């Protein structure tokens, strides 16, 4: 093998390489896409769950909006306080963090406590409600087929005895379940509130009791025990927690709710549940 031959090979390969490199360079200049690197950085700091809880199409859309200052980092319901602070300090803007909200299924009627008719159709709430309003005696109660649990990207909803139970510690407040429930049972409440009325039926007390043992019958015991209308509000035949000024967990014991519709969130959800893998 002669040295000349090696040199020729190196040079010709080199020329091809340089030529192609130059072409790529020119084309890259001509077709350059402006990318704000801050968007990428913010997206990295976001959880990447793409749950849509912020109201944007996904994490990258939210990152764009945050960088364009159309949204505050605090609007992301999944980020922890530290994450939000990180993003805010990186961009040098206000965090705009709101109060942490969690989902609440306003029903306590599991299988043993409610009247149901036989239903042999598709096991999905949104489908069951089309056929005959669902098989539950109560028109307003949880149907128990778990459409919300399937919609939850974080596995925070457990189906227990035909009732959806939200585990507040897993819930990030993305509101996917709120949009899924065909009975509009799920509402967002401040995570700080401990006591909720697990009933959503505006019917009269007697009518509710016919179909559900754990309905709120608006006996007002809790209202009285908490001091008139300060912590608990009466709305027709239903009592609701005043989330502006939520009562303490002691209220449940103090008021001795006769139907157990008034519950402490932690106790209502408590059991061995680790979430479901998605």
């Amino acid at each position, binding site marked *: 093998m002669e040295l000349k031959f090696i040199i020729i090979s190196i040079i010709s390969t080199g020329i*091809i390489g340089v030529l*192609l490199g130059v072409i790529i360079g020119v084309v890259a200049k001509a077709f350059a896409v402006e990318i704000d690197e801050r968007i990428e950085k913010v997206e990295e700091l976001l959880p990447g769950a793409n749950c849509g809880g912020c109201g944007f199409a996904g994490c990258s859309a939210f990152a764009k909006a945050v960088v364009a200052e159309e949204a505050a980092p605090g609007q992301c319901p999944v980020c922890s306080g530290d994450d939000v602070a990180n993003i805010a300090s990186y961009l040098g803007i206000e965090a705009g963090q709101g109060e942490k909200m969690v989902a609440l299924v306003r029903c306590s009627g599991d299988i043993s406590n409610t009247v149901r008719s036989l239903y042999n159709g598709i096991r999905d709430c949104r489908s069951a409600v089309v056929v005959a309003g669902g098989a539950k005696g109560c028109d307003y109660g949880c149907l128990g087929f778990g459409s919300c649990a399937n919609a939850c990207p974080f596995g925070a909803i457990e189906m227990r005895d035909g009732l959806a139970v939200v585990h507040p510690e897993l819930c990030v407040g993305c509101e996917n379940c709120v949009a899924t429930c065909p009975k509009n049972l799920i509402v967002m409440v401040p995570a700080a509130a401990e006591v909720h009325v697990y009933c959503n039926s505006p019917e009269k007390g007697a009518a509710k009791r016919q179909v559900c043992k754990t309905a709120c019958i608006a006996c007002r015991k809790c209202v009285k025990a908490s001091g008139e209308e300060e912590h608990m509000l009466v709305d027709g035949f239903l009592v609701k927690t005043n989330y502006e000024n939520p009562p303490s967990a002691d209220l449940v014991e103090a008021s001795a709710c006769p139907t157990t519709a008034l519950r402490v969130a932690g106790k209502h959800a408590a059991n061995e549940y680790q979430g479901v893998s998605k």
Partner: protein
Amino acid sequence: MSELTSEFLVITIGAILVNNFVLSKFLGICPFLGVSKKLDTALGMSGAVIFVMTLASLVSSLINQFLLTRDFVIGGRTMNLQFLQTLVFIVVIASLVQLVEIILQKVSAKLYESLGIFLPLITTNCAVLGCVVLNAKATGPLQSTWYGATIYGFCSAVGFALALVLFSSLREKLDLAQVPKAFEGTAISLVTAGILAMAFLGFSGLV
């Protein structure tokens, strides 16, 4: 029929149906399985591969013909640079993929995002390199010219696209089927791909 015309038919029909790159030569299986979940992305990937493969065939057969196979005399011995084929072809393909990527990002950001990692992976798509190497080895009077090689590259890419589109349509339907747990996902896809390959076996003997 003249020799050129008959070879033209052999190249086109052969590359698309009989010796289909994916289903007969089993080249380019990676994007075949990876990008076939949805028809839309499969169509995008097919477009990208057709573009890259045609261009790669053209450029590398030109380089092969006018540079690598050129004989020259050094110290009384006739030599050529054919041993550089693989090296040069890889460089050419890689830069072409780079070009496609840059252009695509500007022209169709949506397609760019949906192709994702598979776009740069065309670089290592063995179908492209295989096609270029087959061109370099070809002895036919048509395929050994640069335009014949380009036709072959284009037709192979169309064959690849055909297999990919067929397969992704099947997989979209497969999504609706109730598949036994053990066969879910890639397993049933591979079984389907095998059956598809067997179906393409029926084309053998066509040319």
